[in-house]
C-alpha cells in the first residue's frame, strides 16, 4: 500500500528532516509513528500525500509512484487519503458543516448524500450541535475533531492522522481511537503520529519510531518508546 525506498528530505533552509527512510506498510495495517518533537514525523507524513516532495528516494502509494505521477493526478491521490492535519487546516470562512462537505463536493457527490454523510461523521465526533459554527468559534479540541471528521467522511482507503488527540481530553481521545480502530477493522490503513504514551501502550499496534529523520525501531506490537 505505502512503500518508501531510501527517502531523504532536506528543506530549502538546509534542515535535513528525513534521512533515508525505507518502509512498507500493507493495506489494512494500523501504524503509530512516534518520536521526539522535531524528529521528522510530520515531514514523513506530508510526503505520503505529497504536500512535500522527497529530495531523494521513491514513494509508492497504492498504484501511484509519487515521483513520476502527473501534476493533474495529485488531486486523485489526495482524495484517496484522509488526513488529520497537525494544525487542523480548516477553511476559516466556511462553517463546520461546509468544511466537511467541501471534501465531498470535490468528489462530486450528490447533495443529499453529502448532507447525510456529514451529519453522520459529526455525530461520531459529537459536534452535531456545532454544524453551523465557524472554526474560530470552536475550542481547540473541537477544531481537531472537525479535522478528524473531514478526514474520514469519504471512507478513504488510507487515513493519516498527525497527532489527532493533541488537544483532546483522555476520554474524547479514547473515543476517537475506538473509532479509528473500527475504521481499521473495515480494512482502512491507518497511520497515526502521536505523543500519547497511554494510547500507544494500551492499544497495541505496529509502532515505527523516528529519531532524527531515521527509523530507530519498527515493532509489530510495540510500546511507546522512541529512544533507540
Amino acid at each position: 500500500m505505502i512503500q518508501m525506498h531510501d527517502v531523504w528530505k532536506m528543506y530549502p533552509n538546509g534542515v535535513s528532516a528525513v534521512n533515508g527512510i525505507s518502509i512498507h506498510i500493507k493495506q489494512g495495517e494500523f501504524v503509530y509513528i512516534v518520536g521526539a518533537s522535531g524528529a521528522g514525523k510530520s515531514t514523513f507524513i506530508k510526503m505520503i500525500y505529497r504536500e512535500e516532495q522527497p529530495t531523494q528516494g521513491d514513494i509508492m502509494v497504492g498504484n501511484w509512484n509519487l515521483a513520476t505521477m502527473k501534476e493533474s493526478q495529485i488531486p486523485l491521490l489526495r482524495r484517496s487519503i484522509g488526513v488529520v492535519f497537525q494544525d487542523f487546516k480548516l477553511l476559516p470562512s466556511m462553517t463546520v458543516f461546509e468544511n466537511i462537505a467541501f471534501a465531498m463536493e470535490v468528489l462530486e457527490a450528490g447533495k443529499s448524500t453529502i448532507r447525510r454523510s456529514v451529519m453522520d461523521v459529526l455525530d461520531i465526533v459529537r459536534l452535531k450541535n456545532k454544524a453551523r459554527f465557524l472554526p474560530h468559534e470552536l475550542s481547540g479540541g473541537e477544531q481537531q475533531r472537525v479535522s478528524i471528521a473531514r478526514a474520514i467522511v469519504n471512507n478513504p482507503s488510507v487515513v493519516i492522522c498527525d497527532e489527532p488527540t493533541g488537544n483532546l481530553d483522555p476520554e474524547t481521545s479514547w473515543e476517537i481511537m475506538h473509532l479509528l480502530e473500527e475504521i481499521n477493522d473495515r480494512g482502512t490503513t491507518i497511520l497515526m503520529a502521536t505523543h500519547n504514551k497511554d494510547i500507544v501502550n494500551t492499544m497495541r499496534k505496529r509502532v515505527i519510531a523516528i529519531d532524527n529523520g531515521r527509523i530507530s525501531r519498527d515493532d509489530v506490537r510495540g510500546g511507546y518508546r522512541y529512544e533507540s
Partner: protein
Amino acid sequence: MTFASVSAVTVMLLVVGAFLMLILNINHFADELEADVEIRVFVDREAEASDQDDLGDDISSLTAVEAVDYIPREEGLDTFIDGMGDEAEYFENLREENPLNDVFVVQASEPQQTEQVAEEIDRMDMVDNTEYGQQVFEQLFAATDFVRVVGLILILGLLFTAVFLIANTIKLTIIARKKEIQIMKLVGATNAFIRWPFFIEGLLLGVLGSLLPIVLLTYGYQRFYDAVSGAAQLEFFTFLPPESLLWQTALLLVSVGAVVGVWGSLMSVRKFLKT
C-alpha cells in the same frame, strides 16, 4: 474585502467613463470646427459666363470636393455693404464699378484636404486666386489632431491604469485567501474546481463595479446635456447627443469591467494553484 474590490472597480470605471465622454466631446468639437473650413475661389474678372460654368464644373468634378456654392459679385457686394452697418452709405458708390470678383465657395470632403484642393483649383484657368485662411486653419488642424492624439493616449493610459489597479486589488484580496486555496488543494480539489468560483466572482465584481458608473454617467450626462442645450449661451459648442454616446460608454464599461474582473481574478489565483 469584496466591497473593497467592487468599489475600486467602480471608482476606476467612473473615471474612465467620464474621461471617455470628455474625449469624445472634444473630438466632436474639433470635427465641427473643421467642417467650417471653406475655400473661396475668386474668379478672374475677365471670365465670360461660359468660362464660369466650365470652372464650376471643373471644381465640382474634383473627387475631394464635397460642395460648391456660387456667389456672384453683385451678391458679394450687397453682403459687403450691408456688413458695413451705419457706414453703408459711404460705400454705395462702389456699386457703380463693382470692385469684387465672382466667388465659388468650395468645401473639401475632408478638412485636411483643403490645402491640396485649393492648390488644384488655383492651377485652373480663369481663377484669379484662392483663399482659405491658410495660417489659422493649418494651426487649427494641428491643434485638433493634437487633441485627438492626446485624447487617445490618455484614454489608453487610463484603461491600462484601470486594468492594473483592478488586477492589483483582486490580487490583494486573493493573497488573503492563499491559505484557503492551499487547504482546498490538500483536500483533493482540482485546479478547475478551485478556479471556477474565482471566475464567477471576477465576472460579478467587474459587472457590478460597472453598474454604478453607468448609472451615474448616464444620469449626469443627460442632465448636463439638457442644461447645456437649454442655455443659449453655449451655441458656440454643440455636445454629442446622449443616446448613442451613452450606449457606447455603457457597453465599453461593462465589457472592460467583466474582462478585467475575470482576467484579474484568474491571473491572481493562478499563482497559488501551482503546488
